[in-house]
């Protein structure tokens, strides 16, 4: 099994420090909202939002890999857990966000005013 019986307390605290720093960076960006990031967008989303999402994924990676100790598991277990989630989430997001945007366009361009 993956239980190496040595204490990896040091790594735990390092990861905690890293997660805290990322959270602090996110909050700082969320409060000052730099115009260069907030006003420019890439694929219908502002650069600031992309930054938040990327930082969140980095945090998720560290939580799963270090705290849930995925890094010590066999690659079959890693793949069996991570790949279905990534695939299905991307699929779901693609469908729902495209559809949401489509409905927005329909509301916007229709002759009937729906919210007044």
């Amino acid at each position, binding site marked *: *099994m*993956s*239980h190496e*019986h040595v*204490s*990896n*307390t040091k790594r*735990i*605290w390092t990861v*905690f420090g890293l*997660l*805290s720093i990322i*959270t*602090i960076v*996110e*909050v700082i960006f*969320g*409060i000052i909202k730099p115009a260069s990031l*907030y*006003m420019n967008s890439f694929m219908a989303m502002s650069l600031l*939002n992309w930054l*938040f*999402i990327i930082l*969140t994924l980095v*945090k*998720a990676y560290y*939580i*799963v890999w*270090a*705290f*849930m*100790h995925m890094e010590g*598991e*066999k690659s*079959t*277990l890693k793949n*069996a*857990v991570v790949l*279905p*989630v990534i695939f*299905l*989430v991307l699929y*779901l*997001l693609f469908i*729902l*966000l495209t*559809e*949401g*945007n489509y*409905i*927005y366009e329909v*509301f*916007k361009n229709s002759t009937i*005013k729906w*919210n*007044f």
Partner: protein
Amino acid sequence: MEATVTTANSEEKTWGGGNEPMKASYGKLMMWFFIVSDALTFSGFLAAYGFSRFKFIETWPLADEVFTHFPFMHGVSAPMYYVALMTFILIFSSVTMVLAVDAGHQMKKNKVVIYMFLTIIGGMIFVGSQAWEWKNFIKGEYGAVETKGGSLLQFVDKEGHRVALADFATTLPEEREQLSRSKGSWFMSESSLPAYSVAEVQAGFKAHPDLLIRTEVITKDKQKTILSRKDSELRLTQASLVVEGANLTHNEYGSKLFADFFFFITGFHGFHVFSGIIINIIIFFNVLLGTYEKRGSYEMVEKVGLYWHFVDLVWVFVFTFFYLV
């Protein structure tokens, strides 16, 4: 016949259990697959939130105007600090959980006890914080008016600062009693009435010429549209409902779906934290009683640890999509 019979591994009971192709015990593996399905459930919720948000992208509430409270700092607008604090509390309880797992690997019972205890306390503080957050969300701060068409009108002064209904609404000599089942002609009742009627808000607005109306529509500079005084007066004539705070059908922050998703997703997450605390308490007492010491393995702590980290993982995403993005 011999050609078709597999001779390799014939000594091992392949289907009899006991062998671990993924080198993880049955219980741990099942916890992982439970987490996969639960992760997909939360992804479904958050994707549905994204769907509704993209659908109403021009009128969605701005999160940092909604969540501005911080304990003991009344009236100070402190967006995000409180949720950031909650995030820290949950990440920290995740750290103590992983330290408990680590101590379990080394069979150090006392350390496991201490770290499990800290984890439970952290979880309780988190759930308490969430309750406080809900309380503020439900109570509301400024109040708003809903039009016949279902869009929301908020009130601002000349500088664009929000103004609460209580600061300008007049009191008219009118009485509107809440309908309760005991007074209804049939088994009917209604939810509690707002402090002011539409007519009182309209009269108060007329009496304060420096007030303006802010609509839900987001402009190019990512601010809410503020109407001119003339347009404001015109829009207010369409008012049909005074909204204070939030419930599942109306809320003073903007899109109705915003409050629905807030209650549902943070509620579902809070329920996960709550059940995590209960499970942690059970395991904590098992550790105290020495169950795992006798068993020779603290793997049970590891399994609840997986669940607890997962709850933290979900919060990281909820934090991003509700408060940052």
